[in-house]
């Protein structure tokens, strides 16, 4: 079964029209000795069989429909309204290619234009692109944009330790051939004044995450001061932000961001074991022509009707080749559509409501957990939906106990990335966590100490 409609009779007629005897004749350019290798793959299966097989495979996972979960750390379980799946599931959207031919792609183009507009609304930036692969790669592209905005003359990138550890790793992977210096995260300090002290005339950009990887909200005045220091040195201020937080907290434009990017999975995307996700990317207008990726713009047709096209393509690989701003071609258009539908469903008040629910529930959890003997908050800094919790024993031991005895998936073990934070759990609470789930976690942790 290969979804081939043609029959042997069709093939016979076609071969005759081509003027060859057999299909093998079409492959004469391939070296004889290498042609038709054996492929050792499992025997093919039918449609009901593959569905059974996949359901069985999927059932070897513990999924979050069956276990309360306090994991976040860059991938978040938020409510996805039913309309998102139904709109994204329209095959006119998902079986289309990149909208190279605008006259038959207005659906994709207008939804991307609306998505760009909503990302601008969230961040306060002037322009957004059609998406990157994920939050990490959009940050790497932000670095390249900043270096390119300085015409390659500035070679230093300062990144706060408050940026997701995997994002920092991806920035380093992307730039390993570019002769850049990436510094700033040698210590765990994320203090804005410390970062400001590193800025010099060789600095292309400084990157912070807000809320930080540890969940803390950076103080707007401190960020403003950092932005001023960055701008005084002629560098760019890059902010990676959780878009759900922007439903409630100040948009990065307010504290001087030049580029805002981040992970958009929370906007209507499933967890999907880490992908496909959505890298959103927005910037001030002076950097638009340095930006990577597809951009949709408004124009008119021959009759003067409003329409949308891919634009500013002279930045892109298919036109500029080695001089392009990036190599990106395919992006995450369908995830951007999901985000647009999500943000439309939420609207002005819904997104704020989601953010407030996260905030209140996370604070309820923090208050209750930090009251347990042996448990305390790492600091009293304001946070959004995640917070580091100091525990009386290693986090992996606690998580094993929670999973095996209570069926709970505990928080993220910060020691994985921050050796200075042993026995510290990054607890994430969203609107999907009920009060009951939080209360059970509060009940479970002391029970472990009693059993120990």
């Amino acid at each position, binding site marked *: 079964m290969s979804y081939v409609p043609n029959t042997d009779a069709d093939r016979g007629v076609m071969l005759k029209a081509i003027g060859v005897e057999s299909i093998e004749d079409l492959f004469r350019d391939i070296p004889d000795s*290498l*042609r038709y*290798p054996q492929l050792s793959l499992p025997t093919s299966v039918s449609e009901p069989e593959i569905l059974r097989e996949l359901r069985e495979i999927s059932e070897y996972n513990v*999924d979050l429909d069956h276990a309360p979960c306090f994991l976040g750390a860059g991938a978040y379980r938020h409510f996805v309204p039913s309309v998102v799946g139904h709109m994204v599931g329209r095959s006119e959207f998902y079986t289309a*290619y990149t909208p190279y031919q605008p006259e038959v792609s207005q659906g994709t183009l207008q939804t991307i234009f609306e998505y760009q507009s909503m990302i601008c609304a969230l961040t306060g930036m002037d322009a957004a692109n059609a998406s990157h*692969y994920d939050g990490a790669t959009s940050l790497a592209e932000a670095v390249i944009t900043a270096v390119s905005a300085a015409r390659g003359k500035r070679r230093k990138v300062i990144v706060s330790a408050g940026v997701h550890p995997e994002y920092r790793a*991806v920035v380093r992977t992307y730039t390993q051939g570019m002769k850049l210096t990436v510094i700033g995260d040698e210590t765990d300090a994320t203090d804005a004044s410390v970062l400001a002290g590193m800025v010099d005339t060789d600095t292309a950009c400084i990157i912070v995450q807000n809320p930080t990887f540890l969940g803390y909200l950076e103080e707007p005045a401190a960020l403003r001061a950092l932005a001023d220091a960055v701008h005084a040195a002629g560098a760019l201020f890059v902010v990676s932000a959780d878009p759900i937080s922007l439903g409630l907290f100040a948009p990065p434009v307010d504290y001087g961001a030049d580029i805002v990017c981040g992970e958009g999975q929370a906007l209507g995307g499933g967890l999907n074991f880490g992908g496909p996700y959505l890298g959103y990317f927005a910037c001030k207008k002076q950097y638009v022509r340095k930006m990577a990726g597809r951009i949709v713009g408004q124009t008119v047709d021959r009759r003067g009707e409003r329409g949308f096209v891919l634009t500013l393509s002279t930045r892109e690989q298919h036109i500029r080749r080695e001089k392009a701003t990036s190599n990106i071609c395919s992006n995450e258009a369908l995830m951007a559509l999901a985000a647009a*539908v999500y943000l439309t469903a939420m609207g002005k008040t819904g997104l704020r409501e989601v953010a407030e629910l996260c*905030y209140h529930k996370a604070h309820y959890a923090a208050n209750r957990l930090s009251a347990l003997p042996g448990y305390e908050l790492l600091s009293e800094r304001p946070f959004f939906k995640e917070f580091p919790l100091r525990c009386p024993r290693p986090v992996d031991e606690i998580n094993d106990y929670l999973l095996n005895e209570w069926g709970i998936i505990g928080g993220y073990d910060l020691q994985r990335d921050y050796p200075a934070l042993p026995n510290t759990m990054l607890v994430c609470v969203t*609107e999907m966590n009920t009060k009951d789930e939080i209360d059970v976690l509060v009940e479970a942790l002391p029970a472990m100490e009693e059993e120990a």
Partner: protein
Amino acid sequence: MREPLIFEISSPGRIGVNLPKCDVPQAPLPQGYLREDLPLPEVSEVDLVRHYVHLSQLNYGVDKGFYPLGSCTMKYNPKVNEDAARLPGFVHTHPYQIPCIVQGNLFLMYQLQEFLKEISGFSAVSLQPAAGAHGELAGVLMMRAYHESRGDHKRTHMLIPDSAHGTNPASTTMAGYETVQIVSDARGNVSLDDLRAHCDDTVAGLMLTNPNTLGLFDEHVQEIARLIHECGGLLYGDGANLNAIMGIVKPADLAFDVMHFNLHKTFSTPHGGGGPGGGPVGANDVLAPFLPGPVVVKDRLDEECQSDDEEWEEEEAYCYHLKMPASSIGRLKAFYGNFGVCVKAYTYIRMLGAAGLRQASENAVLNANYLLSRLKSIYPLPYDRTCMHEFVLSGRLPDAPDVHTVDIAKRLMDFGFHPPTVYFPLIVPEALMIEPTETESKEMLDAFAEALIQIAYEAKAKPELLHTAPHMTPISRLDEVRAARKPILQCPKS
């Protein structure tokens, strides 16, 4: 057929979602941190649904009709793939769950790595890259890491044929190499003379697409590999055109060192209007240690992983883990690749099996050659050879000097077809790059051929019809120059 912008149908006080009440005591919000306004649209659920359904109707997709976009492999996407990727046991798993409770995901990823190894002949595969260009960047960075690991710092150039995808030179620049273009010969192969002239110890490697973007299998691929390897360079394979050769030849047997796959082309995962894709990268023994990670490895079941499920233990005395390859170039994205896309590719490969994959490639090549046979007397064919899964014609019709490829492409829309790729590859003037794929019937190919023949006639007899095309689409030809000159990139703020 103008659909208003979502912001234009917004009305204060409407909302399209029903959220739960807060079931915990409210905590004070930090003053000075909050935003004042959030200018998102306000619409009800029914407004939302009608808006996006209307927009979807303005789109053309594979499910609507023939989409012969060259180099993009717009084959039909089986519906079962969609159902597979939406199984809740996959969708609702968090990437940081401990391996013991995501063995299903890791097993599937491991199996897909194994399938891709078998199809390509490589010794290792990483599923990290999220798209083809992402896989290219991985491959070029791996080549760089390999040379650096040997203390060979003089290699500064990447050789790229003039028929290559634009992503190849763009990836090369991102990885810090300079691009050197190699010309094609009269038969559409890489010119061996030009290649020889450029092979020296400054060459990091060659990026080769084979079959190339002319739809031709390079007749000298083994000689090309020999020349590159002799000068100490490596051979990169752009796997965009793998759909022509599954089960026909293994790229590793052609002496490629590293190659990316396009799951969203060859393995039938839909393109989503531009993504998500999947760009796994495969490598031979020499380059495998440099693969981006983490990758999934299989271990003997250890005590830590003992599950309560005895059946699982008996059947599979293995468990699956994530691991960084020994000298990895690092992570290319957060987490582990586009898992949801991997589920679709796994489903496709399991349903086709070895025979089905070969059948897919054979029929893709048969369909392309059949369509070519119907068109080559009408449209100029710059390289008259047996093609693989696609072919490139020129839209420069002898009797219609004022008609351009863009006119032909736009006119095709009036016949209900998506146009082919146009103006690429760059070495063919007025290129029309046509890839029918294996999932189209002879009747569809005939209808498309007849439309193109009719258009060639119109080009001569009534060229105005082409210049003003399309006539039957929701919107007429758009002013792209204006869009770029005075960019409007978001809805005007009210």
